[in-house]
C-alpha cells in the first residue's frame, strides 16, 4: 500500500498537472477572446443589408463549422509552419502555442457567430425598425441597439461554446503544444501504465472542476442580464 501511494506520488511529481491545466486555460482565454471578436464581426456580416458580406459570413461559418478541429489544427502546423515557414514567435514552442490559439479561434468563431445570431433572434424586429426610423445607419443600430440586446440573449449559447472551446483546447496537442493536459496525460500514462486509471481519473476530475463553474456562471448571468420587455 505504501509502495502504491509513493509510486503514485512520484508520477504526479514528475508531471506537473496544474501547469498542464494552466496551459489549457491560457489557450482557452486567448482563443476565446479572438473567437469572440471574429465571431461578432461574422455575425454583423450575416445580419448586414449588404448581400456580399452576408455571403462571405455564411460561407465562412459553413466551411469552418463543418471541418473537424483536428484537421484545422494540423493544417495550421503543416501548412503554415512547415510549408510556408510562418512563425508567430522566434521561440518555437511559443509559436506553436500561438498557432494553436489561432486554430481554436478561427474554428470557434463560427460557433460564436451562430450563438450571437440566436441572440439576435431574441431581439424583436421592432427594435431595429425603431433604430432605422430615427435615422441610425446600419452599423450604429447594430452596435448600439441590436448587439447589446443580442449578447444578453446569447449568454447561455455562448457559455456552451466556451465550454466546448475549453475541452477542445486539448486538440492543441495536434498543433504540437505538448505541455497541455491531453499531451501530458498521454505521456504520463505511457511511462506509468500501472497507474492508468488513477492518472486518467485525476485529469478527468480536473476537467470537471474547470467546466462546471462555467456552466453555472453563464446560466446565472443569462438570467440576471436578460432584457426586460
Amino acid at each position, binding site marked *: 500500500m505504501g509502495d502504491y501511494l509513493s509510486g503514485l506520488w512520484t508520477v504526479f511529481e514528475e508531471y506537473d498537472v496544474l501547469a498542464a491545466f494552466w496551459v489549457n486555460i491560457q489557450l482557452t482565454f486567448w482563443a476565446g477572446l479572438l473567437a469572440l471578436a471574429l465571431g461578432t464581426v461574422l455575425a454583423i456580416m450575416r445580419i448586414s443589408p449588404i448581400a456580399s458580406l452576408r455571403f462571405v459570413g455564411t460561407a465562412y461559418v459553413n466551411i469552418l463549422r463543418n471541418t473537424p478541429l483536428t484537421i484545422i489544427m494540423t493544417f495550421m502546423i503543416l501548412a503554415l509552419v512547415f510549408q510556408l515557414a510562418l512563425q508567430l514567435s522566434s521561440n518555437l514552442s511559443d509559436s506553436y502555442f500561438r498557432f494553436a490559439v489561432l486554430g481554436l479561434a478561427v474554428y470557434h468563431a463560427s460557433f460564436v457567430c451562430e450563438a450571437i445570431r440566436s441572440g439576435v433572434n431574441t431581439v424583436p424586429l421592432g427594435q431595429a425598425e425603431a433604430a432605422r*426610423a430615427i435615422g*441610425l445607419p446600419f452599423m450604429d443600430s447594430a452596435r448600439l441597439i441590436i448587439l447589446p440586446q443580442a449578447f444578453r440573449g446569447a449568454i447561455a449559447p455562448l457559455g456552451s461554446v466556451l465550454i466546448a472551446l475549453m475541452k477542445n483546447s486539448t486538440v492543441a496537442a495536434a498543433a504540437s503544444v505538448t505541455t497541455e493536459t491531453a499531451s501530458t496525460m498521454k505521456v504520463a500514462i505511457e511511462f506509468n501504465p500501472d497507474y492508468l486509471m488513477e492518472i486518467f481519473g485525476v485529469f478527468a476530475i480536473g476537467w470537471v472542476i474547470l467546466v462546471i463553474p462555467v456552466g453555472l456562471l453563464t446560466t446565472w448571468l443569462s438570467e440576471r442580464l436578460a432584457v426586460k420587455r
Partner: protein
Amino acid sequence: MDTATTDDAPPAPRELGEPLVELRTVNKHFGALHVLQNIELTVHQGEVVVVIGPSGSGKSTLCRAINRLETIDDGEITVDGIPLPEEGKALAHLRADVGMVFQSFNLFSHKTVLDNVTLGPRKVRGLSKSEAESEAMTLLQRVGVDSQAHKMPAQLSGGQQQRVAIARALAMRPKVMLFDEPTSALDPEMVNEVLDVMVSLAREGMTMIVVTHEMGFARKAADRVVFMADGQIVEEAEPDEFFTNPRTDRARDFLSKILTH
C-alpha cells in the same frame, strides 16, 4: 357670431402650406398581393391626415413606405421635394426628417427613457450629451413623463411608453410625424393620455399622418380623412363630412361596423 371654439369643436379649416409629402402612383406587392395600388396622396405642411380602413387594407404599409421601412415597386415618394434615397447616409438623413411612432412603442428595451430620447440627437444630429439631455427633458416634460426619465421602458405603463416614443421621434425635429395605430395596443384608460399629446402636436402645427380608428381624434385634430380599402384610396374628405356623409358603399359599410362597437 362668436368665433371662439371649444375643445370639441372641429378646427377651423387651416391655411395649408407647401406640399410636404407626396406619393405619385405608388405600387407595392407582397408576392401576389397588391398591397398598394396606384396610391396618390399629397400631405401639405401643417396638415393632419387620418388614414382609416379595414384590417389588411395597406395602411401600415403606406406609413412604412413613407420612411422606406418598406420599399416600393414603382411610383415616387418625395419628402419636402426630395425623392426617397436608396439605402445609405442620405436615407438615414431622410428618416430623421420623418418621425415614426409604432403601435407596439418599440422603445429600446436596454436603455433608459432618457437614453431612448437622446440617442438619435447624439448619434444622428451630433448634439453633445448635455445638449441632448436638456432637449430631451423638455420633450419628456411636454409629453408628461419627465418624472420617469431614469426608468427602464419595461417599468412604464403602455401609455407612458407611447408618450416616450413620441418624444423620441420629436427629438429628431422631424418635418412630418407618422403614427401607425398608436393607441390600439393600449388599455382603454390610457388611450386619451396619448391622444391628448397628439392633439396638442397637431394644434402646434406639426404635419401628421395618423393611422387610427379613433374618430374622436379625427374629428378634433384632422384636416382630412383618407379611407383605404384593398390597397386603394377609396375616399378622401374632411372628417365631419366623411363620418356623417360617406360617399362610397365601402366606407359606409366600414363605418357602420366600427360605430356599432
